[in-house]
Every structure is written in C-alpha cells, then in structure tokens.
C-alpha cells in the first residue's frame, strides 16, 4: 500500500482503532431523495458514530447493486441528478463534520468528466478518494496518476474469488483501505454474514494490507459486531438507503447509532479474535 500521501481514510480508521474498535462506514447515494437530504443524512451519520462516509454517484447501469440501491439511484437520476453535484454533497458533509468522505462510483462517469478533472474537483471539495466497484487496478493507470497528483485514496475491491496474485496486486495498488466483498453477489441485505468474509480479510491482511473493511450484505448491529471482530472497518449500504427511503434523515441517524453499538465490545475479545 503506498503511504507517502497522507490518507484521510486511513487516518479515520486509525482513529477508530485508537478507541479500541473497528471503523463504521456508511453509504448513501447522492441526490436520493434530493441533494440536501444526502448532505443532512451524511452529517447525521457522522454525528451518530460513522467514521467514514461513502457517497455513491447514481449511474444508469449499476451492475454491482441489488434492488434497494438500484431503485434509489434510478429515482435520483429521474429527479435530474447531475454528476457534478456530488462535489457539493462531499463539500457539504466535510465542512460540517470531521469524517472522511469517499465517493463510490462506477467508472464511466469519471471517464466522461475526465479522470484528472474529476480528481481535481473531488480533492477541492475535501473528498478523501474513490471507491471503484468496476475498475480493477489492471485498467487504472490514469487513476493512479490522478490520485497521486491530488492526494486521493484509491479503494479497490477484493472478492472471495480473488486469486492470491490478484490479492497481492490489489493491496499494492490501494491506498486508504482495501474493500473486501463479503460474498459473491450484489449489494443488499442478507440474513447472515458470509463465512467467506473472515477468510478473505485474513488473506488480504496476509497479502500486506494494513486496513481491510468489509461490505455487502451488512444490515444490522449483530452483523457489525461479527465483522468488527476481524476487520478494520464495517461498511453498511442498502440498510441505510432503506432507512432514508422509509424514515428520512432521522431514521439514518437512528440506524447509524444502532449499528455503532455493534462496534463497542470488550477489547480483550477483539485481540483474541484477531490473533485467531
């Protein structure tokens, strides 16, 4: 992992570690139901225990997303969402809080704006970096250059299907943290956390990653508690999107608070788990 650039995401995760817990990362798509709500909900997440926030760019062809996020992003686009407004959302949250704000985006909107231009504007807005679900390091040369130039984090994904060679290569390419996909599938709530997640986190750590966060299918405090016992951070998406859909900004704050309870656990237990 390249560390010569100060990583905002890494700093946020390390701050949580110093408090003896894993980091909580919350996702919401920009512009759902409107831009101001996304900003307000981001602030509510930050004030209720989230350490990092992912703001998604609604995209016409979200192949890694399940029904809840698809429905939200489709509605945001139908309501006139424009890609450049994601920078306003990032700025609105970073100005009001001290959380790290990452943008999660499919790659074509970045290509269309220009990778350098997009990166420049994201850095200017105070953003920490990008999570790129359909960009693998093999295709990311432009993004390497721009993220180095503007000091942005590069969060690539690893999956249970990733080979040891690809794990090593992806860890090397990432900055901030590595996003471990808990299960083979798309985003959305699931009854239980996949057992493949723990092994993947262990393998990714063994491949040299300092920080590995787990996402996909994490929807309640019990999931958070389970994952927090072996990962550096826990990522929650669809459950928060369902919360803003059904109960607005207040419900997002409430759910974040409940989820963050899952992070609080005896430090001794955490140590045992990590050593195991």
């Amino acid at each position: 992992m390249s560390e010569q650039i100060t990583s905002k995401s890494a700093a946020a995760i390390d701050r949580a570690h110093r408090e003896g817990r894993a980091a909580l990362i919350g996702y919401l798509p920009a512009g759902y139901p409107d831009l101001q709500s996304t900003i307000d909900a981001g602030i509510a997440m930050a004030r209720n225990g989230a350490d990092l926030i992912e703001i998604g760019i609604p995209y016409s062809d979200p192949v890694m997303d399940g029904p809840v996020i698809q429905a939200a992003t489709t509605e945001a686009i139908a309501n006139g969402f424009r890609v450049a407004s994601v920078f306003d959302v990032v700025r609105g949250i970073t100005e009001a809080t001290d959380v790290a704000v990452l943008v999660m985006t499919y790659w074509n909107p970045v290509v269309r704006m220009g990778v350098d231009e997009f990166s420049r504007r994201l850095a200017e807005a105070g953003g920490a970096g990008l999570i790129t679900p359909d960009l693998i390091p093999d295709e990311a040369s432009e993004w390497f250059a721009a993220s180095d130039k503007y000091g942005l984090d590069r969060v690539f994904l690893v999956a249970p299907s990733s080979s040891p060679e690809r794990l090593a290569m992806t860890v090397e390419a990432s900055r901030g943290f590595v996003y471990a996909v808990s299960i083979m599938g798309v985003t959305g709530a699931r009854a239980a956390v996949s057992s493949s997640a723990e092994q993947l986190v262990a393998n990714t750590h063994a491949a040299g990653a300092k920080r590995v966060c787990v996402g996909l299918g994490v929807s309640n405090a019990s999931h958070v508690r389970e994952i927090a016992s072996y990962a550096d951070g826990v990522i929650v998406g669809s459950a928060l999107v369902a919360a803003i859909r059904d109960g607005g900004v207040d419900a997002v704050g409430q759910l974040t608070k409940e989820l963050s309870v899952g992070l609080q656990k005896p430090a001794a237990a955490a140590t045992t788990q990590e050593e195991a």
Partner: protein
Amino acid sequence: MVRLMVDAQAASTGENAAEAFLQGGASLRHAPGPYFGSYGGRWMPESLIAALDELEDTFEKAKADPEFIAQLHELNKNYSGRPSLLTEAKRFSEHAGGARIFLKREDLNHTGSHKINNVLGQALLAKRMGKTRVIAETGAGQHGVASATAAALLGLECVVYMGAEDCRRQALNVARMQLLGATVIPVTNGSQTLKDAINDALRDWVTNVHDTHYLLGTAAGAHPFPAMVRFFHEVIGEEARAQILEQTGRLPDAVCACIGGGSNAIGIFHGFLDDPSVKIFGFEAGGEGVETGRHAATITLGRPGVLHGARSYLMQDEDGQTIESHSISAGLDYPGVGPEHSYLADIGRVSYQPVTDAEAMDAFRLLCRTEGIIPAIESSHALAGALRVGRSLTEGKENPADTIVIVNLSGRGDKDVQTAAEWFDMLDENGQVKGTTLSTRKPKGPQGSAADSSEVQK
C-alpha cells in the same frame, strides 16, 4: 450532418492508415485481445475476474485442442447445417446499380440466425469448465432461443434475461425459449431492454459464478468475450471467402453487415480484413434518423466510454450515463458496440454508417419480393446498406456487373412478421391481419368456449 462529414474525412485518411498497416505486413486477423488499439480490456468487478480468467484459459486450451475443434465442426455441420449457402440475389441486384449482390445465408442455420455458431462453442466450453448452468441476455430473442437450444442439446440448465418491453414485443420467442426448457426472466429495471437484461445477467453471474457460465451473445463485453465470440463466428467469413472465389473466381469489391453489438459483422469481416482490395461496411441502426436522437448509431455518433466490461464507443450523455437507444430492430437496439469494431473504425479499415428504420424496411420488402427470402429486420439494415454501396461502386461504370458485393444475411425474418405487418399497415384496428376476420363460422365446441372464458379471466 457536419459531424458526419468530418467523420467521413477522418475515415478516408484512416483508410490510408489501414492500407499502410496492411502493407507493413501486419495482419488484422485473429487479434487476441484484451485490447484492440485503446479499446477492449476488462472494466469489470473484481468478483468476476477469476471467472474471466478461467474462461480465457479454457478457451485458449480448447482452441488448440483438435478434439474440441472437431467437436465444434461436427455440430456446425450436422446440427446447424453449415456451411451456410452463398446465394446470388439476381433480381435484388437490379436495384443496386446492377452490382452483383451475394447473400451469405446465415438465416438458413438451425434456429434461424448466426447466433447458433457462438452458443454451441460457448456451451461446449461451459461443459469443459464443469458448469451446469448457463445464463444469457437477449433482445429480440434470437440469442435467447439459440442459448436455450444449445442448453437443451448439451443438457445444461438455461436462464434467459429479457427486457420486459422486449418480452412484450417478442412474445413468440419467449414461448420458444420456454418450449426448449429455458426459464425466461423479464427484466423490469431501467429501460427494460437489452442493456438492462445484460445488467441483470451480470448480477446473476456474480452471484452464481461457481456453477454458471454467462453465455454472452455478442462480440462485446470483457476479455475474452470479444475475441472468443469472434472466433466462433469466423467460420462465416472463411466460408464466404472460399464460396465467392469458387462462384466468381475472385474476391468481392465490398462486404456488408449490420452492427448491433457486432457479432455477425465481425464474423464475416474477419475473412476479408487482410484483403486490401475488399471494402468493408458496417451498418448501424439509424432508427428514426440520427438527427432525431432516436437511433442506435453508436460508432457514428457515440464517443468512447466503458460499459459492460469493455472500453468502446458508447451512446452516453454529458454525465457518462448511458443513453437509451432506439431501433425498429430489437437486435440492434443496443447503445454499445464490440471493441474490435471501435478499433476498425478508428483505423479506417471498416466504414460504419447509419441506416434508418425506413431504409431497412424498404430493403426488407424488396428482398421478400425479388428473392423470396424474408430477412430479419437486423439483416435488412445490411441489405439497405448494400443497395447504397452497390449504387455508389457502380456509378459511371460501363459494366456494373463487374462489381461484387457480399451481404451477411444474418437471420431470417419469421420473428419480425408482426413488426413488419404493423410497419406496412397490414393490420386492422384490433391488431388482426386485414381480411382474416371475415369468417362467419363459430369457434368449434367446448375448446373454443374454454379458450374464450380463460381470456375473460385474464
């Protein structure tokens, strides 16, 4: 229109580049991927990379395995009916300035289109990988029917994703797939057409990749799909080249094909890419006219982007959101295009031009009435283009019959009869073919009334 002229200029300078490329001795055939110039690659979630690696590995080994090649050849010959014919369209030719038009008869293959070439190859690979389930996307239903056919033949479970709007437009093909034992899942996301069916197929694949092969239907998507799908369709161009040499003693002046994702086109083009004297034309769906915005002319008016795993020309708005395409032909109604076509366009080896719905339907009717062949509406775009190319190449020529043009007749039009009947105003206000509802006899007995009452219950 200005843009089109600029493009034509770029193409003509590019043509020199392509000729220089050929004279330099480098071949344009058998490009292995993952990149075709700056196009192609793997713009895909990490979760699927292992499956793509496995597929690439299996495909490379199979290609070099005489047993696999023999198996494929046997199926092509004794199941699909290859080689497909090359038919001279003498009466149709009269409308092309007198150029001799030859039709590569992919419409005569089993299941009625070129699609069978690719599905048999990929289904064999799925078996080699030990996968028990195949999934596919389909627009008009041709690829879905072909996939269901190959799955039935080889004993694989088959699930086909089809836009809900396309299910409505092509209900008969839904029934065909079901008769063949496939499950058809109507896709209600997004525009409910082909691109959304691909999205849902990818979501299925990422979830079930351990036992499932994604049988992608066109020469697009992430590596190795573009090069692999082309490989299975190269037989079209190889046969056509040998057949025209046999029938006329020389190479054609031009080869024409229609372009959606571009699989039939890349298959026939491939036979002629290294023949500098052969002009090659790809005809995209111009829909209601490229100036209306309602079209699927991806290379003509799109710009490079990434979608469904490859960098290629793409119909997109200023934000990089995919634009909905429009075409009377469901099979060409796709806002992307295979990456090798983007490359061949940029270097000027192939000229890509739009053909409108109206031009395609005129050519559709003309072929019906001059040759006794009902073509697919997709292929009718290539026919319309060939009329244009024939007229232009014979202009001012003393003996127009010296000009030879091959058209890839990629599919038959049985599936399009309903669309054509609507287009040519053959239906009454109830959607029945005019003149077919005059019978005064009552439907017979209990069967008739049972059918009636079940209609009412719906």
